[in-house]
């Protein structure tokens, strides 16, 4: 669905590159996470893939369209959910969706149905300007589905949302995936990437450091840990020990045998910890 070969981009049209010679492919129906801290090149890459930024260097094919050529009809297959809500504040929720529906060539989804999916049913006739930040975000998210996209760009889809709404959004993404929709998910939230993505790419300073499935990454980079709290000579101690190293395994056995155990949990390395391990940078 997406093929990127040796893509580079410079905002200043010089050697100062925001994206440096990146390559990756995304299959139909796949949910691909593009992970990195702010300024890593995530939004720039998404900008080029959506056509909001002009293609400069490399080969990019999106939904069967060569991005070197200007072909507006490709947007019939694409949906974009922006990180910042961008709806007409003077139009109602329903008017916003109806207007955008008119801009597409093919059949579109029922605006009422979309508003219901994102939990805005009953607010159809309220102006978007009266909505809370979360509601505007949900409306922006709903709008990105109006044309039933084959390829869906999701920029920080759950950022700033309360946990219940974020869970709803994640359910919608899973449901769309089940229908065969390909998603390109840009985020710095490793938990959502871990939950939703088939594969993830770590991008930092415009370069992709690795691409793999979350499971494989955990197997490759993650070390199984045990977190134990125990009382020794009247004082509480807490330690994290690796179950794969002999010295730590022996220490776990000694603690269990000799001290009063308060809590004991097995723990897997998170995607965030793996990111830090691989890139040496935190996801801020």
């Amino acid at each position, binding site marked *: 669905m997406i093929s990127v070969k040796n893509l580079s981009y410079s905002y200043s049209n010089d050697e100062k590159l925001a994206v440096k010679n990146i390559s990756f492919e995304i299959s139909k129906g796949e949910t691909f996470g593009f992970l990195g801290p702010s300024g890593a090149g995530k*939004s*720039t890459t*998404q*900008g080029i893939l*959506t*056509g*909001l*930024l*002009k293609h400069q260097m490399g080969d990019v094919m999106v939904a069967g369209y060569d991005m070197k050529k200007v072909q*507006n*009809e*490709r*947007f*019939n297959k*694409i949906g*974009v959910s*922006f990180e*910042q*809500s*961008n*709806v*007409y*504040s*003077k*139009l109602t929720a329903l*008017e916003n969706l109806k*207007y*955008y529906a*008119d*801009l*597409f*060539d093919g059949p579109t989804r029922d605006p009422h149905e979309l508003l219901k999916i994102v939990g805005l049913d009953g607010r159809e006739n309220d*102006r978007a300007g009266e909505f809370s930040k979360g509601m505007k975000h949900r409306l*922006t998210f709903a*709008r990105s589905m109006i044309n039933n996209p084959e390829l869906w760009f999701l920029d920080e889809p759950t950022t700033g949302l309360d946990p219940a709404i974020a869970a709803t959004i994640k359910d919608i993404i899973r449901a769309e995936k089940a229908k065969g929709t390909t998603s390109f998910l840009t985020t710095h939230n490793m938990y959502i990437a871990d939950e939703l993505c088939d594969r993830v790419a770590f991008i930092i300073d415009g370069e992709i450091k690795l691409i793999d499935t979350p499971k494989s990454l955990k197997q490759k980079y993650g070390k199984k840990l045990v977190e134990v709290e125990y009382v020794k000579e009247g004082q509480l101690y807490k330690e994290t020990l690796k179950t794969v190293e002999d010295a730590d395994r022996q220490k776990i056995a000694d603690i269990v045998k000799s001290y009063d155990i308060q809590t004991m949990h097995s723990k897997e390395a998170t995607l965030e910890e793996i990111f830090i391990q691989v890139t040496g940078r935190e996801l801020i």
Partner: protein
Amino acid sequence: MKLLSSYLKEMKIASRGFYFYIEIFVAIILLLVILVGVDPNPDSKMVEYIYYDMPEEVYEFIIDKDIKEGKIRQIDDTELELKPVEFEVSNKESGEIISYTYEEKKTVLSKTYQKLNPDTGKVKSTIYILDNEEDIQRLSVTTGDIAATITANEEGEFSYRYFLQGYEKERFSNILYILHTYSPDEVDAQRDLQVVREIGVTERMNNQEAVVPVFVTFAGALMGFFIIMSYIYLDKDEGVISAFAVTPSAVWKYLLSKTFVIITTVVISSSIIVIPIMRLKPNYLLFYMFLMIITYAFAALGLLVASFFDSISKAFGVLYLTMIALMLPAFSYYISSFDPLWLRFFPTYPVLQGFKGILVGQADLAYVLTYSLVFLVAGTLLLALANIRFKKSLSV
């Protein structure tokens, strides 16, 4: 279909916003001001200082004759104050320059008459008769009003020497010249030879009507230019342009739909003023065609300017200078003595002239159609450039 949908959406947004009602409100207020506050045919405040360089009995005879014919009437004598002043008088024919310096203040008593409009009986101007040429020159210099010395030779023929300020249009001095050189029938023919088209039209408008061409010009030009920029920046603030950019609809349709909204509001606000004041005088088909084309062209200019700046605060310098430049031809319209050639290169100049003719129902069709074509082509080119610029500047 997409264009229609965009237009309807833009109209909905505009009608729920501030700028739309500002224009309508301004038009209504202006209409009320014109109808209530502007006398269509007020008494003229024109003043003339005259010195009759001839025996007293001759000029008294002339005055008496005019009084009997109802052309003038005598009122109470007026005390005129002559201020200290220093000036030069240049003779247009001989080129001779004479300098005058008056250091003392002086008060003179002047016989005073009012020149009357024979049709309405209303006062056209006030005439002050003084007994020497220096005094009328001093008064002319300090007040900016016209002064003249009228001389009679032995054959009883009159000659006129006018003192002008030096900045009057050549046409004006030529008309003064031919007024006393040709027979009355020939004066009209000579005036036509001298004519700058727009003055003839203005003279056929009353004071209320004379406001209308300026209003419609600036409703179309300034409002088209300024308000479309405001709409674009509102959209930029909301980020909806980026959302539009990821749809199959072309950017030019978005830009054109904005332009159509501006045209609609300008047509409404202009109609509020034009219809009640001009009534059946204008050729409305020509008027609305010209108005829509002008608004389209200036809105396209606004779109192009808006494409270069991220916010209205960054665009403010260009916005301000452009609006001042567009307003300059209005000075020429209201101050007939100010009509330099360079002013005619400002785009609102021909627009103002075009509207003047159309609104009094005496449009020069070739002039209006030529400029309509020019503005239509220019507007389309500007819109095409704005389209290219917007495609480049729409980003994440």
